[in-house]
């Protein structure tokens, strides 16, 4: 019997939507069961949400004070122990999953498939390499566990409406004390999360300053969009690192992506290739962003953004 274990990602105590995307990927593996594993100091919120995801057979929880924060060194031995009866262990290709899953794979002495974008067959997967400039098909031999991360931008969240059973799980794992959580600094804002937002507005170096980014925020708030940025804008200190979109930042797939003052380095483009519609606004008509934009407008963004704000969303 082939079973899939999906490792839940939490935001605080709430379930992150990446978990439902992993379930969507898991549902293509022709497995007999898909179980979700929640590790936290308070699991009930997340297990309740996970139980509603369609396709989930049961939700397992390991509730312990040492699971209060997602430290890979602490979680990995517990996940590896829980994975004993599973043929597949999937986690999201977010910073959470990228940190913990390879550690799980190594503890189980198996390789990992990173960033599954498509399931070709239960043991064959497509994944992007070279910043998405090539698509590689990989095969995992029979008899080996498949440990993988799921490229969240390639998958839609599995629907909800299910009421799967929830069970507490105990595992025999040694919990290391060599790694300790200190703090998490997040910029508080009310805008939609980049990785789930239907609309995203991004600014690049062309925005010019942190103050000028207010223009971008105002437009985003008018149309209910999340706000992203290019690496250049983050490096220049205009915005926080968690807003970076691209090969090394967030890979996103909103219905609408609008890029203001972003030239379009390949490392940025790889983060937005799955967007429904890409709009580029740049004063340089030669900017590479226009090569992949569905709609382009050449002009001064300091005139265009306020005009757009006025004309959109009424």
């Amino acid at each position: 019997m082939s079973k899939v274990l999906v490792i839940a990602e939490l935001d605080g105590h709430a379930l992150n939507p990446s978990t439902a995307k992993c379930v969507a990927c898991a549902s293509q593996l022709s497995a007999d069961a898909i179980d979700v594993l929640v590790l936290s100091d308070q699991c009930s919120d997340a297990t309740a949400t996970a139980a509603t995801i369609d396709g989930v057979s049961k939700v397992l929880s390991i509730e312990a004070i040492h699971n209060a924060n997602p430290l890979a060194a602490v979680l990995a031995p517990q996940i590896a122990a829980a994975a004993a009866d599973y043929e597949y262990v999937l986690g999201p290709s977010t910073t959470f999953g990228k940190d913990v899953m390879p550690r799980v794979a190594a503890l189980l002495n198996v390789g990992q498939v990173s960033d599954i974008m498509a399931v070709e067959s239960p043991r064959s997967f497509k994944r992007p390499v070279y910043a998405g400039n090539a698509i590689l098909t990989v095969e995992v031999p029979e008899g080996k566990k498949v440990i993988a991360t799921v490229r969240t931008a390639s998958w839609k969240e599995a629907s909800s409406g299910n009421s799967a059973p929830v069970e507490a799980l105990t595992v025999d794992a040694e919990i290391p004390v060599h790694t300790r959580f200190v703090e998490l600094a997040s910029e508080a804002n009310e805008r939609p999360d980049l990785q789930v937002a239907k609309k995203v507005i991004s600014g690049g170096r062309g925005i010019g300053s942190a103050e000028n980014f207010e223009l971008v925020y105002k437009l985003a708030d008018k149309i209910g969009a999340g706000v992203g940025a290019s690496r250049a804008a983050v490096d220049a200190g205009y915005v926080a690192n968690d807003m970076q979109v691209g090969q090394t930042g967030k890979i996103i797939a909103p219905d609408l992506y609008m890029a203001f003052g972003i030239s379009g380095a390949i490392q940025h483009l790889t983060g937005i290739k799955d967007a429904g519609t890409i709009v580029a606004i740049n004063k340089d008509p030669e900017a590479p962003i226009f090569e992949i934009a569905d709609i382009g407008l050449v002009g001064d963004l300091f005139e265009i953004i306020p005009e757009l704000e006025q004309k959109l969303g009424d």
Partner: protein
Amino acid sequence: MNKILVCLKRVVDYNVRIRVKPDGSGVVTDGVKMSINPFDEIALEEALRLKEAGNAEEVIVATIGPDDCQQQLRTGLAMGADRAILVESGDEIDPLAAARTFLALIEKEAPELVVLGKQAIDDDCNQTGQMLAALWGRPQATFASKFELTGDTARVTREVDAGLETIEVDLPAVLTTDLRLNEPRYVKLPDIMKAKKKPLETIGISELLSDLEMQIKASNWAAPGQRAKGVLVNSVDELVAALKDKGLAA
């Protein structure tokens, strides 16, 4: 610290527009510029700064690959590493095999800190550092944007999706670097000359690893699907109309 080990990978230079071979057997690398993986350059820079601040005695750079990798190791020596180790392997190896190989080097060299880039820009796997930390049974501080050492403990700020996370790890530990940790130095000509005299040791991979079986097999490379050619509009009004057309604006 006595020793810092920095693990480098030779990759196609980040400025090269890669092309997939027509038969799908890989990407074109003949005649293509090769460089140190940019994240690994940041890793080496961090190690060198720790040494320059008096926090380490020796910085060793190591890589796994064919003889050509000596170029990248020499660049690492020119940046300031004290010596280099090439683990010679003709075959492509996967991250787990790389981690097992570096673990064998750790057992030989006993470094207090191992620094690697968070991912290589060719396979984009983002696995080797984490796997190495697991096999070594030591902490991992991944995606680091700040590293502060206090005695045998390091405080590391990590770039995570939710913002900046700070953790504390006891040494020995594995550190993987994000883009904003530092800006690597440029190599100067006299340093290149000096680097030629620094020790570069070559070890066959079979001396470190008994089995080289790759667990995940690459079967085909393909070019990504292209997006359809877009349109240029001439005004905000046209843009708004186009968005309304697609149902993306009210």
